[in-house]
């Protein structure tokens, strides 16, 4: 049976290098994506994913299994780190994800991505987390409820409300992009 995050954490605290590596492989990519979606910056996301694990190594890492799953704790740390980075203005705004060579397409795509990230950032934290975890990370409602520490129904209603707010916020851009594409 696959060890839980909490098992790996316990072993990590005892100095088990392999357990720490496994925990990192398992959780770093999703933390990176979470940080990317919240910050809109690839560089900041890499930094955050790294820093979360650095803090987990510290003797004063404050994870308490009685208060929730380790994954929720990791997301919480990532969120706080982004907040601190933002306060110190070290998060670049979105736009470092362009890959294609079509200049007009890139412009539209980047503009759309930047607008989506900007709209996500403007959502209340709990709505934003619901969108990121349910729609961008494609986690089940049950999983997200466990991570957010709330009932499944609450997750669903937060997500629906968040999607409605996002759609409303992005609508003007969709219309203008449609005009440009034509």
């Amino acid at each position: 049976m696959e060890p839980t995050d909490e098992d790996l954490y316990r072993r990590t605290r005892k100095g088990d290098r392999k357990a720490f590596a496994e925990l990192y492989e398992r959780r770093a990519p999703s933390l990176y994506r979470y940080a990317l979606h919240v910050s809109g910056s690839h560089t900041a996301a890499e930094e955050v994913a790294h820093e979360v694990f650095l803090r987990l190594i510290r003797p004063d890492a404050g994870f308490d299994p009685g208060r929730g799953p380790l994954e929720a704790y990791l997301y919480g740390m990532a969120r706080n780190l982004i907040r601190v980075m933002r306060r110190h203005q070290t998060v670049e705004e979105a736009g470092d994800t362009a890959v294609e060579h079509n200049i007009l397409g890139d412009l539209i795509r980047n503009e759309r991505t930047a607008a989506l990230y900007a709209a996500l950032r403007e959502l209340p934290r709990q709505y934003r987390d619901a969108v990121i975890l349910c729609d961008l990370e494609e986690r089940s409602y049950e999983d997200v409820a466990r991570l957010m520490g709330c009932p499944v129904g609450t997750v669903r209603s937060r997500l629906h409300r968040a999607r409605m707010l996002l759609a409303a916020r992005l609508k003007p851009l969709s219309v203008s992009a449609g005009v440009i594409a034509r």
Partner: protein
Amino acid sequence: MNCHGWAVELVECARSGQLPGPELQNHMRYCARCAERWEDERRLSARFQVIRQAAAAWQPSAFRRRQLMLEFERAHQGGFRLWARWALSAAAVLLVAVAVTHDWRRPAAKPAAAVAIDSASDAAADDAGFVDVPYAPPLATGELVRVIRTELEPAALARMGIDVDATEGAQIPADILVGEDGFPRGVRVLAEFSELQ
């Protein structure tokens, strides 16, 4: 079902990439608001799909991973050093505690109950069996003295002219006569004193 009820199904269909069921499709044919919401939701899901794909390929770089593992090793070596430091400190404290307790439990180390005598003089001290401490100033007439019970080294007693075996290792119970100035004036070996009595 009203529009609010349909909205739940509509969002879930857009999220899963499925087409709405016939009933909802029928509803959307005459409800412009739900039809518009369906378009918004579909568009939003498509955007999510794009950024999901862009982020999916990310893996931690080998450099970052190596850095982290080095940090992990350093932290745990540090942890060991910290543990060792604590262990050594604890051992030192334990040793001191044992030494102090051992010393404490020896009757000699206890400042034996001080016995105050109301008045004294050299003569009274002599009567009580005290031997003068060499070169100590004489007690003044009417000077108050204290008697302190303790244990003394046989060699120290022998130097004062008291007849004890100086080579004996064990300390000998004795009373010390102390003047008002705090200086010892006389010594009385308890065994010898009892013999004299």
